[in-house]
């Protein structure tokens, strides 16, 4: 099971956090601080796993961003690397060659994508196409609702003129 997902920038800024196990706000801050210290200092050729408080943190660097997932000691580390890559590929398709700024300004969209990939710390979908389809369908639902709202407010505005 994945206990939490963290996206940290090279400078240690948090870009996304998702907690599947209960951590209080204080613990979360502490965990992030501890792990940034551990992971950001590791050299480039070392393995992508860090042992931490009886758990394992699997991380992978994409440009200036570190994608980290904390898993139980008996989970498959190599597979989690693939899950991270799966997530990144879907983000990449969704944003069209994703960069850190996309994830900063559209952080909520990154969360929506993640929610289509993981639930309860487990993988829910192995098809990238399927995830993209589901996100697109939901985005268009939102767009439709917005248009409707604006057309209604136009009608009201005209009627009250």
């Amino acid at each position, binding site marked *: 099971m994945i206990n939490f997902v963290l996206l940290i920038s090279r400078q240690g800024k948090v870009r996304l*956090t998702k907690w599947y196990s*209960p951590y209080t706000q204080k613990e979360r801050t502490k965990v992030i601080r501890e792990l940034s210290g551990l992971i950001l200092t590791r050299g480039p050729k070392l393995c*992508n796993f860090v*042992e931490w408080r009886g758990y394992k943190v699997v991380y992978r660097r994409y440009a200036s961003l570190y994608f980290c997932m904390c898993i139980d000691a008996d989970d498959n580390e190599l597979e989690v*690397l*693939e899950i991270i890559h799966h997530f990144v590929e879907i983000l990449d398709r969704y944003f069209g060659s994703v960069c850190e700024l996309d994830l900063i*300004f559209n952080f909520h969209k990154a969360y929506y994508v993640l929610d289509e990939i993981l639930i309860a710390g487990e993988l829910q979908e192995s*098809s990238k196409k399927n995830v993209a389809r589901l996100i697109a369908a939901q985005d268009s639902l*939102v767009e439709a609702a*917005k248009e409707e709202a604006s057309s209604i407010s136009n009608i009201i505005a005209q009627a009250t003129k």
Partner: protein
Amino acid sequence: MALNPFSSGTRLRDMIRAIRACKTAAEERGVVRRECAAIRASFSDNEQELRHRNMAKLMFIHMLGYPTHFGQMECLKLIAAVGYPEKRIGYLGLMLLLDERQEVLMLVTNSLKQDLNHSNQFIVGLALCALGNICSAEMARDLAPEVERLMRSRDANTKKKAALCSTRIVRKVPDLAENFMGLAASLLKEKHHGVLISAVQLCTELCKASKDALEYLRKNCIEGLVRILRDVSSSSYAPEYDVAGISDPFLHIRVLKLMRMLGQGDADCSEYMNDILAQVATKTESNKNAGNAILYECVETIMGIEATSGLRVLAINILGRFLSNRDNNIRYVALNILMRAIAVDTQAVQRHRVTILECVKDADASIRKRALELVFLLVNDTNVKPLTKELVDYLDVADPDFKEDLTAKICSIAEKFSQDKLWYLDQMFKVLSLAGKHVKDDVWHALIVVISNASELQGYSVRSLYTALQTYSEQGSLVRVAVWCIGEYGEMLVNNVGMLEAEGSITVTESDALDAVELGLSLYPADVTTRAMCLVALLKLSSRFPSMSERVKRIVSQNKENMVLELQQRSIEFGSIIQRHQSIRSSLLERMPVLDEATYLMKRASTTQASIPAYKPASAVTPGDLKFPNGLAKPAVTPLADLLDLSSDDATATTTASTTTAPSDFLQDLLGIGGTNLPTAGAPSSASTDILMDLLSIGSSPSQNGQLVPDLSLAQAEKKHVSAAPQLVSPVPEPVDLLGSLSSSTSVSGTKSATAVPQAVDLLDGLSSSTSVSGLEDACPSITAFQSATLKITFDFRKQLGKPQESTIHATFTNMSSSTYTEFIFQAAVPKFIQLRLDPASGNIVPANGKGSVTQGFSVTNNQHGQKPLAMRIRMSYKVNGEDRLEQGQVSNFPPGL
């Protein structure tokens, strides 16, 4: 930055820009504060059209680590709204801003229930996702029927979400497992990969949660699983699921994992899987990470189930390939499975010993750590010597950070296989020489025990240590052990006593030996323990080498004005022994009697199992029982030695019970008991404390009263000793405490008591906190924890530096009424974040009119030290003239900083 002060008008994008443009943390706080104020205002004005944007802003602020609890209710409102966009952001906010422990979450149960029954599949999806990510046990119970129904939905998307949501429900409420097992098994017949993956995960969770579910799934889904794995592994190219040329590695891995759960300990199931496992193990491509991930899982499954030997060989071969892979990730997981494979097939793992040993020297800390653990498991009688040699050689070049782990492992290997004493000593000397700075205290304590027992090797030991000291004087624990040995066995060093055949003789003069100890004294100006040990060694050498006693006196006297009272006291007292008591000196400074190895090992073992702290009452030894064969001489040495252990175990102060401080207790035995020739079984610590009491009572008797003196057969000897430095015996700060403890011990002397020990240790601590300037502890003021017309309770505190969360509390109960209390019992309760350990009380009868008191020690550990103060409820029950009485109260006046 031109920001509208009422910036509810700013867009999310603008707020993020503004925050990113901040140059200092203070500036950022300013922007966030303004935004939060605007969002609050907007919430209270109920501005509908801005809710969406405000929630998004709030989530960003939350991510930066600022408090956002005021937005929690807004989440609930958004969720309860009708439109999809509101619900979407509302659920996201719910998952980000809240977690399962917040009460607010219960309020959302009803909205969730409605959304789970919604006709729009995406709204159902949102609700399932939120429930799966943050539901609490109560919510899980309430909403399980809805989720169960949704698993039967026609929409694949809803089905997979409901299945994963159920995994969380089963995790939270394992009793519900049976409700889900039939559905989970039926989902395995689907074609949609998302549903399959989710269903397999649900089955895995069910197996963990319930034995019945495990049996059910064994019967009903093994065939399905084998079919899924066969289909997916032999399927042709499917672009939708393709990862590096492999079709859906995620599904592969999850099925393999579930197979492991089902096959474990079930021969029929395992038999059924053999073929497909062999197929996956042989046919999977291993040039990409995805393939290796499958192979890794497959090997684990083969190791986990009752596989045929042929399959096992296949798995071990894959492991061998992994281990020689150049990719660090692969090597890491290889070491990982080898740890588990060791239980199945030790021989196969032994074959890779050389490679594993290479991994210990890897540049990657994660790999090193794994490899070291593995080597530790691999050691046996036949390979212990070469393996240890490799590790010791590596110690020389290892990373400083890694040395602590490494030395700890080498030492425990060496101890575990220490039948060959000479070999053990050699290894330990090497470790001390190469990494003495990193060796833990109990390791060198153990070494001293072994040396003291190995009479034929003492000469060799002292010579080896002396030689090592010449080169490696910067290694702290080497210096300590060497100095102790030179003090004890100095004449063996100088006269080459007990030469071994292979040993070359060395020429050391008496003055060289003294130089070595003096070096230790000068090298560690800050280390009180080492310096104190040096002083004792010097004292001992003054009797071993009478011709050197003038020089010893000179060196010893250099510390007469030391700021650390401990050292000052030793210096002055030792000086007077050397100068004025030559007649008794030789018998006073005889060699330490042999330390009891078995007792030590037992005690040490009990500390390693510290998770189950069992209080072992020490058998009572009253002062009158002590036998001092040498008349005056022996007792005089014991207080000195006791003083030594005051400083040499930093640990004593932290805990009071004898079991938890076993190594240090041992040191007490080592240095304190030695002189008393007690029967060692079980009694040592209590004996040494009795002596300590004697010492203390002498010190305090002038200021207290004479009632204790008749008890002390050694009074005379000690008086002499005390008179040599009367100004050093400072009064103990809490006379009540002292008196209480002492009187309890005296009143107890006729009967039997298990409590004499902790109190004595308390006393010891009290003394050191009051007298030693070394700063081992923080002083906290005492408080009156409880006071009624009939009963008064005071708490005295002690803390050790470096462990702020632990406090030792000494409670004193005084009866203010005119009738005696019998069967007095004190109970305390603390909040969950505090751990409490009560020691037995000194008695259960509290005499009337405040004439004497009962004391009880206990220790508390505040796991949230610095965040929450100590709090405690107390209850005292007792009988007055046979009538039950009960008093209770809350202690909230603890001094700050506990």
